[in-house]
């Protein structure tokens, strides 16, 4: 599967108003080049958030490496859940192209997608 060339892409994070929700927004191409930034976005957040929302509203394309990164995020949350509440992971605001990729991969079975 493609590990695509770098386009201008960025990872933005913010903690939502309630203070317990970490929102990660990935802009542009969500691909292998993002993996460091994406991991940094949720690791070392202390205390761990109660929920991680991946906001895909500005994601134009997503490849298999990105799907892999989402699996790593999911695993990380399971790991965190061992010592307390497991953070819930949600994927939101995917455009039609990105939701198509998510549904082809049947990721809706393991993630909550809104």
């Amino acid at each position, binding site marked *: *599967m*493609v590990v695509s*060339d770098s386009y201008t892409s960025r990872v933005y994070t913010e903690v939502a108003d309630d203070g317990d929700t970490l929102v990660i927004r990935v802009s542009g191409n969500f691909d292998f080049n993002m993996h460091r930034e994406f991991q940094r976005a949720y690791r070392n957040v202390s205390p761990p958030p109660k929920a991680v929302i991946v906001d895909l509203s500005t994601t134009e394309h997503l490849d298999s490496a990105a799907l*892999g990164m989402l699996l*790593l995020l999911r695993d990380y949350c399971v790991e965190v859940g061992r010592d307390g509440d497991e953070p819930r992971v949600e994927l939101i605001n995917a455009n039609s192209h990105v939701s198509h990729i998510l549904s082809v991969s049947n990721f809706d079975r393991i993630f909550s997608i809104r």
Partner: protein
Amino acid sequence: MPGFRVLIIESDAEEAGRLRDLIRACAYTSPSGCTVPAETWCVDSFAQARSMIGRVAPNLVLFGPASARVATAGELRQLRQQGGLAPIPILFVQDLKSACAGEVPKADCDDIVIKPYNPGLMEMKLASIRRFRDFNRSLITQRDRLRRHHADFLQEQANAREIFGNLGNESCLDDTDAIRYHLSPRAVLNGDLLAATYTPDGKLVLMLADFAGHGLAAAVGAVPLTSIFYSMMPRGFSFSRVLREMNRKLFDLLPRQMFCCLVMLELDPRRNHLRLLNAGMPSPCLVRADGAQELFVSRHLPLGVLADDQVDTAIVNYQVRAGDRLFLWSDGIHEARNLRGEHFGEERLLALLRKGAESGEAPSRELQDFDRILVAVNAHAAEQHDDLSLVELDLSKPSLTKGDCPAVDYSGVRRGGRIGEWSIEICLAQEELREADPLPHLLSVLVQMPGAVRFREDLAIALGELFRNAMEHGVLGLDSSIKNTDEGFVRYYDLLEERRQQLDGGWIRISLRCDDWGGGGELQLQVEDSGSGFPPCTRSGRGVYSGRGLAMLRTVCRNLEFSPGSSLVRAVIAWGDGQPTDGENGGAKTVQTPTVPV
């Protein structure tokens, strides 16, 4: 710290001596902290210098005032060429009082030292040249190291590719003209994987897989995938059992962020039955003889994501008709991008296939569609971003029937060997039936018998048919007539899966008995189930044992018996002369019960 060597070219001996002293007086401390004085050599002409350069390998050539005046651009060029990759800086001395200063080919030397000499300035120049020398040297060392690593890396990939290539040796892809395929890896190794083989009862199984990522990691994942495929499928393990095994293995092996998208299909060319699982791949497209298209969308997560996964519910069943063709592709085709970054996409592909269906006769179309897709994708893509795979399968071509394919080679088996006298009985209860896959075990026992290859396929077909009938009609109580329509066909298999999952009772008993009288023999198969038995005889041939299943049994069995009201079926496979030489022995074993001829 290697020394710093300076070659002085000067025809005036006194001048040369002065330059040498000047250079020796310059202190230089290397980055590693040690101070090594420069070594100097003096020659009085360019011709002498040339013969010295190979021996001395100077780090700097200094033309004294007299030599600089007569140096030509050609000479300097020669000097540089001798230096090879590590360029030799060339310094000219220019005497400010000299009248001919203007004649110096300034553009060809690297720097000028002004006479009268300024020791401080000279020291600075030499130190800077040394620094550049050291820098250049470390660059070359790094380059060499990278070159070595890269060569090693390519070699490793080439080795891996060879192993990878050998994995495909068992495939039957090239044995039939009903399969066309194109695989073009982006890197040395392919992240896409295509494999095909036959099950013992003659079904074609084909798998197109795409690992997340490419190169070495993807190829490494391909090894267990292929070996499971080629070891389990020809032994007769069921489609879903093999898929579950693959998923389990990949989940154990792959790093968390890696997984494998895959389409696997099983085509029974005798029953025209297609089963297909799509786990995260682009939808394969079925093109009917009349041009209608049907897409098999992904109904399953990629393999290797979840530890334990039920694949059965995601397998689709399909009745194949004459002229049906199936196109499979990897996302390399979807995602082929042109210069504007637009993907080739599914829509363009389907449009191409539609256009193919509208134009021309079927025989010419077959070749065209496949080639046209490749041409269009290549024309679209600015450069290849990903592994690119395309497969076309002509579902109704007679050459898909195993018949001519070389049988799996069980080396050391003599075709004429004795099969022996023996019997086996197996009884499967509800727990086993939910996951039932008794055929591979039985078959693996049977092929151990010398000479058993002769009826291996017949046995697999007969046993498969009898077992399926006992399971579907006997234990699960399904009525074959549901399959009479297209929708019913699919409904039937959904029902089958549903009832099997919920099974909480029932059993199937299989017994085999072999009689070998040398030069010939018989294998008697008996399958009995817990069901209510066959309905009162339906001589029309319709009913529980309707259609293709019965016809297939008849092609491989000499004798077939079952009685209404009973759930016991007896079938006989014979080989060789067909008549026992010892009448008493042979006759005793073919017990004739009152039966209904079928």
